[in-house]
């Protein structure tokens, strides 16, 4: 809880530093504050403290996810030092909004009451609507922001309607009580609860961009400023899945048969749409958006295979995925600057000749996303498949493995472009910090795969 409060205060401090025009110390203050928040979260480990009449429960699950999100946010802020250097105005607001979104993410991992889940989703989303429109003069950014806002609030309305129906039937917002209420029907739920649960699941599935509700994500990822895209692809996705997992584990499982079938179909569709959609992309940000959808499919597979180790696999998968995605966006921005702000895949040509160490790092990161051993992406996928096969979901596992094979094609397409000989327009300029970030993340992705096979929860 102290971490949550501290993060809110940190956001306000950063905002005021912006008013005082102290641009140089913004990022250091934000990063130092996040490190303190990290330490404060660690102190709560194992206590399982409850707040606000059991509306918030900080168990090890939520603390582990909070720590992983804080680490990824620190990486993004380190990237932000270089990214925002050319931007004169409103830098403090960008950092502050990201910190506020992070507090929403904390709520999403630690709720045990539907009210807090709703507040968490909204505290996460509303800053993101603003951040997505961060480039005021660019119409693409406006469009991304408005699309995200409109579809996001539409999904929130559907989600709220689901909560209202469940509340009407069960007279409570508290998840364990809802679980008892659902259990007494033995799988034959009254239609009102069934519709309510379906609407709640639709609302959460929208936030994690699972397949029939993924249409916003490529547009929003492409139009938003790159650092915000990195934030959305990593922290927001992690928070969404933590919330989804907690919702299922704390409240809704065992799901009634029709809903469970719907979730399995959603998983299959997410895998199919993400991987097939990525095949024909020529814009790197859109490619990563579809890759994010595809990874959502794998994570859903782990989430639906109910086992005591599901949470561990989920944490490992999201953390490793985030670690590989953030440096890819850094490399993308470096290449984009060198090629006159073009975002196409062909702009990666000649990268190996220009800066061979970046090309090697990029290969490692993309291999991790594709799931090639010995990278940690392979370990994550391997654990997901082992988990889902051991729970008897053989058909969907085979399907997911096939889709992972398709995934290798488009990741290696990018690698091929990186190693193709060509003349870059301008030399690639790498600041020392960005270079260190890229190398450290690549090493971490490699070493986690070799030495660390799961993270503690």
């Amino acid at each position: 809880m102290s971490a949550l409060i501290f993060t809110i205060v940190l956001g306000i401090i950063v905002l005021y530093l912006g008013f005082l025009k102290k641009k140089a110390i913004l990022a250091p203050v934000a990063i130092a504050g996040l490190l303190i928040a990290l330490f404060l979260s660690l102190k709560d480990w194992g206590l399982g403290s409850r707040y606000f009449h059991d509306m918030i429960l900080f168990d090890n699950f939520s603390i582990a996810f909070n720590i992983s999100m804080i680490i990824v946010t620190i990486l993004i802020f380190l990237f932000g030092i270089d990214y925002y250097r050319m931007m004169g105005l409103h830098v403090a607001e960008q950092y502050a909004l990201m910190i506020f979104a992070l507090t929403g993410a904390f709520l999403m991992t630690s709720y045990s009451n539907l009210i807090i889940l709703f507040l968490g989703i909204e505290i996460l989303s509303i800053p993101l609507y603003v951040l997505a429109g961060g480039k005021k003069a660019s119409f693409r950014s406006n469009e991304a922001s408005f699309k995200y806002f409109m579809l996001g609030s539409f999904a929130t309305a559907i989600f709220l309607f689901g909560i209202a129906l469940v509340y009407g039937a069960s007279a409570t917002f508290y998840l364990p009580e809802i679980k008892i209420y659902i259990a007494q029907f033995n799988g034959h739920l009254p239609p009102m609860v069934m519709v309510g649960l379906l609407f709640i699941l639709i609302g959460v599935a929208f936030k994690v961009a699972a397949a029939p509700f993924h249409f916003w994500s490529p547009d929003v990822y492409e139009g938003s400023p790159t650092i915000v895209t990195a934030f959305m692809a990593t922290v927001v996705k992690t928070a969404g899945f933590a919330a989804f997992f907690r919702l299922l584990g704390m409240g809704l499982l065992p799901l009634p048969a029709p809903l469970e079938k719907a979730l399995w179909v959603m998983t299959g569709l997410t895998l199919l749409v993400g991987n097939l959609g990525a095949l024909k992309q020529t814009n790197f940000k859109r490619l990563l958006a579809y890759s994010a959808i595809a990874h959502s499919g794998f994570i859903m597979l782990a989430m639906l295979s109910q086992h005591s180790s599901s949470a561990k696999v989920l944490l490992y998968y999201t953390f490793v995925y985030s670690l590989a995605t953030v440096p890819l966006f850094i490399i993308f921005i470096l290449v984009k600057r060198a090629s006159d702000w073009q975002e196409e895949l062909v702009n990666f040509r000649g990268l190996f000749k220009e800066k061979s160490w970046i090309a090697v790092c990029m290969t490692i990161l993309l291999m991790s996303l594709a799931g090639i051993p010995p990278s940690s992406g392979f370990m994550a996928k391997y654990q997901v498949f082992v988990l889902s096969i051991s729970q008897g979901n053989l058909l969907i596992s085979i399907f997911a493995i096939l889709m992972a094979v398709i995934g290798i094609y488009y990741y290696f397409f990018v690698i091929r472009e990186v190693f193709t000989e060509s003349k870059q327009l301008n030399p690639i300029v790498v600041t020392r910090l960005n270079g260190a970030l890229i190398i450290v993340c690549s090493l971490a992705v490699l070493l986690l795969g070799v030495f660390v096979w799961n993270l503690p929860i």
Partner: protein
Amino acid sequence: MKDISSAIQLIPLEHYILLCVTLFSIGLMGVLFRRNTIIILMCIELMFNSINLLVAAFSAYHSDPSGQVFVFFVMIVAAAEVAVGLSILVMMKRNVDSVDINLLNRLKW
């Protein structure tokens, strides 16, 4: 408080549910089919308010105050969301001088 709850209970619960589902569907159809972004914002508000009404009615019928607290949260969040939405709309209007949603087609596939 007691009086209001009993006054709400004078009308059967089914009527509240029907009214709220109707309002919600009107809002939903508006979001899906109208082309003017301001009307879409209004329809989203309509959806939120139908939910508020529904939760308030349920709360009176269950005589459980937590539903009414939830309504306050929803109202606050809806207000914040509309503030952000309108500012995004103004930003868009400055760039293209229109509020037609069909202009949002630069990003696709």
